[in-house]
């Protein structure tokens, strides 16, 4: 039986990109998170990171397949929404993730108590080459610690 039939990938096909430590939001895309550090395993093995102070930080898929995405965020203000969104464009990049279009929704959550209610979320699914994946906040997630966003290519 082949490795593929078992769902086992060669090491060369696995990859992950992780953003750590929040640093605000894009200056143009004002609801897209920015971070301080990027850690990448398997460069150019199916996805690339954009780390822009204007556009925010996000990941573009370059090879179709199954991916796991996780995101955690926090705020010092109450009641704010955050989520992992897909293929955002235009005004969506400056809009709250609350109730975005079905086509752009992967997962979301809402923080409650200021500074003590970090929320984490995860999603697993199939992505095509060209899909973009965004850490999407509502411009109030101003915490720096315990903030991360990670995309993992599974197979």
């Amino acid at each position: 039986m082949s490795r593929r039939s078992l769902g086992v990938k060669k090491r060369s096909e696995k990859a992950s990109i992780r953003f750590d430590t929040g640093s605000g939001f894009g200056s143009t895309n004002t609801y897209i998170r920015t971070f301080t550090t990027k850690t990448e395993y398997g460069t150019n093995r199916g996805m690339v990171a954009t780390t822009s102070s204007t556009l925010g930080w996000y990941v573009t898929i370059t090879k179709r397949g199954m991916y796991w995405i996780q995101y955690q965020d926090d705020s010092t203000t109450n009641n704010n929404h955050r989520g992992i969104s897909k293929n955002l464009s235009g005004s969506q990049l400056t809009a709250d993730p609350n109730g975005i279009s079905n086509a752009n929704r992967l997962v979301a959550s809402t923080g409650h108590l200021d500074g003590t209610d970090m929320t984490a979320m995860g999603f697993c699914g199939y992505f095509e080459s060209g899909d973009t994946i965004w850490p999407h906040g509502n411009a109030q997630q101003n915490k720096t610690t315990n903030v991360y966003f990670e995309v993992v290519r599974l197979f």
Partner: protein
Amino acid sequence: MGRRGSSIVKPKYECLHFVGGNGHGSTNTRIRRYSSVQTDRRFGSLVYSDSASDGLSVTIKRAGVYLFGIGGMGELDAHVVGISINSSELTTDFQNINKGNALIYGRRGQVNFISNSQGARYLEVGDVLRPHDDNRDDATNSNAYFWIAKMEIW
């Protein structure tokens, strides 16, 4: 030698992603319905059924490890969401069903707060998963969602 005659196998990625709250079953009053299927990639491992009376259910046709998740929002009240497995308590609030039928659980105690939860399990052929709540997860937008993905290709 053609592809079929070689060792190259085209992988079959399988997953479902439902988005957009669309009420609950009229008979199964704690089983969620959704307005759109954003991703539907199936090659025999999964089938789903969505009816006005029964709500949504996903049945496993090929055993294996699956990841799954759910989110919701109560627009009028605090709410509970969960994913049940092989439950017959389809008019019972999720938090009160037999714990052996509860896979994952999420709750937000405030109006208009989005909950989310995710998990994994080895699922057998015939297992039935349902987005199961307390009927207070009443969002009609993308804040209600349910997904499942098979963790191997074949």
